[in-house]
């Protein structure tokens, strides 16, 4: 049992929890994730670890309420518990001094980008971050990102905050003007795909963190399989970080849709019960 120690609403559908997980906090490295299962009947869902507090034995998670499980999670109150928290899973991100690193994040993916940006900064890199979302209220962790970045750019699709447009617009301009040594991109698959396309002509190593559907998260089931350079890999144990120039993003997007019907059904039922 893992207690929820604090809870914050970052936007209407995005929440931040501090949860009790002392061993995971001790071992967490940027790029890793955890799996939670809320209760006996719950499903196992992978979530980003945003930060870890080794001394207090807590980890921060951020999630967007999209289906039944995440909505149920969002209803938990401070002091209530999550039955299972498993982690840290996945390979840690490759963090070292590359020089100038651009961190590109979109939507709730910014949560996953933050620990990497922070680690790159701590490793002595010049960190330029570009974060974007559909609209102003979905821009999360702005202050945190600013604190670990030498420069921070913000875009919104609808122009409701800072610059109207996409993160890739800013990235294109940067690439034309500056020598970039590495790009990390985390967000919706389509955004990561576009990022990879933008950096490809410049031959800059670009890493994407893939958010595929998972069950066990330990390499046992293959639900999370992705195609990288024509080879099948498991995002849970071989990733979640992969060379974005080699990832088949179309496949990732197709596979993310497998359970849309079931998700809709479960969400409707759940919302019916809640009313």
């Amino acid at each position, binding site marked *: 049992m893992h207690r929820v120690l604090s809870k914050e609403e970052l936007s209407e559908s995005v929440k931040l929890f501090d949860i009790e997980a002392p061993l995971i906090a001790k071992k967490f490295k940027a790029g890793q994730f955890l799996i939670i299962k809320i209760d006996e009947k719950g499903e196992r869902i992978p979530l980003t670890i945003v930060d870890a507090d080794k001394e207090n034995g807590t980890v921060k998670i951020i999630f967007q309420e999209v289906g039944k499980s995440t909505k149920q999670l969002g209803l938990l109150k401070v002091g209530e518990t999550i039955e299972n*928290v*498993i982690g840290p899973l996945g390979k840690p991100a490759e963090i070292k001094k590359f020089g100038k690193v651009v961190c590109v994040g979109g939507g709730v993916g910014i949560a996953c980008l933050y620990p990497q940006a922070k680690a790159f900064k701590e490793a002595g890199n010049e960190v330029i971050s570009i974060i974007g979302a559909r609209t102003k209220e979905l821009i999360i962790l702005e202050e945190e990102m600013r604190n670990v970045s030498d420069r921070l750019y913000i875009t919104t699709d609808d122009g409701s905050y800072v610059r109207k447009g996409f993160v890739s617009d800013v990235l294109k301009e940067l690439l034309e003007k500056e020598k970039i040594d590495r790009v990390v991109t985390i967000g919706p698959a389509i955004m990561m795909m576009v990022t990879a396309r933008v950096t490809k002509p410049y031959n800059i190593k670009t890493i994407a963190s893939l958010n595929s559907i998972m069950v066990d998260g*330990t390499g046992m*089931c293959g639900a999370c399989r992705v195609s990288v350079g024509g080879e099948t890999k498991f995002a849970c144990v071989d990733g979640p970080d992969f060379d974005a120039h080699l990832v088949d993003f179309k496949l990732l997007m197709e596979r993310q849709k497998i*359970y849309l019907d*079931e998700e809709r059904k479960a969400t409707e039922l759940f919302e019916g019960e809640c009313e």
Partner: protein
Amino acid sequence: MTLIKEKTKIKEQDPKKRIKNFNEVALGYSLEDALKEASRCLQCKDSPCIKGCPVNIEISAFIKFIKEGKFDEAIKKIKEKNNLPAICGRVCPQENQCEKFCVMRKKFEPVGIGRLERFAADWEIKNGIKHPKKTKPIGKKVAVVGSGPAGLTCAGDLAKLGYEVTIFESLHKPGGVLVYGIPEYRLPKKIVEIEIDYIKKLGAEVKTDFVIGKILSIEELLEEYDAVFIGTGAGLPRFLNIPGENLNGVYSANEFLTRVNLMKAYLFPEYDTPVKKGKRVAVIGGGNTAMDSARTALRVGADKVYIVYRRSEKEMPARNEEIEHAKEEGIEFMFLTNPTEIIGDENSWVKGMKCIKMKLGEPDESGRRRPIPIPGSEFPLDVDMVIIGCGQSPNPLVPEATKGLKTAKWGNIIVDENGRTSLKKVWAGGDIASGGATVIAAMGEGKIAAADIHKFLSE
């Protein structure tokens, strides 16, 4: 006394009914059945059956107790060697083990040893399990990684000897393949729970949600424990490397079974984990996992299920009983057939599978005749879901995270005949060492390792 030539039949659920539920197929012996079957045992002095049992149960002794109606003595006898009798009585391939050596088998059918084991175990569950007193602690600690058959056996034996044992399980429920792999209709999860509870009562502690290799390393475990046993199983699904394998609607058998068994997706939306319900399902493979997947697909709601296997029926590694049960349930076997491509529709969902006919050539390294494709024999199979059950490889998580732990070509941990690995104070057993065998084989290896750990720590 007249000799009864045939094994007493075990009552089973009617195939037409059982394909619509997840209740157990084999219903077990009644008291009369058990007494009758026990009376068939010749009580051979040298008990050749024992040499077929990986955990050395004194078979004729426990059967004698059943014959005398002393069921509590019978189960006590079994539990001297086997802590998981209700599980073994259900899933052991007795035909290749104890029953293979039964003297009765020379002329008639062997004694139904497995069924009698199950009877004794179920009798005790029904009448209240007697938990032995915890052994006085001897002040030494052992960590067991993985709570499948190998780990549970090793842990149980060491706990009985007075070791303080902690079992680390990566999933949220203990049992390994017994809970994620083997379906409810073959091994009810309640039974697994009861027998794991017995191991706990012996003194072993179970910590779930512990992914060793990630949250703690073997090295770190050795700072606290005097020895470590690794029994992390063959968890890595193999794929075929054919086009279309990543289409929506293609599952590894592991994923399909894990969703249904461990996560109870057949009860969706009461349980949150979904599973796709194919109408026409092809299961690739010929082992028990393939049979389990096929019969599970039927129960989840498929109209038609095919087993597609590249060799002939004779070479199938699945237990005869499983093959028979699958046939009774209406599963269609396509032997000497291999898939070459899975076809998707415009939205990347499976809409068919291309197959090719095979013939058998010369024996390969496994001793089985090698299947060879027959040119020009391609044909389409109309399916909307494909489950790939062509075996599992050892789970690489622990070996990859453990410096100095030697592994062989396929990633299995190299051990000697006592389960010792290349690292001091580290043992391994079950599928992670031997790579894809049976529950009971894994248990045998857990037992051998436990004895060797005890020997090592007593020196």
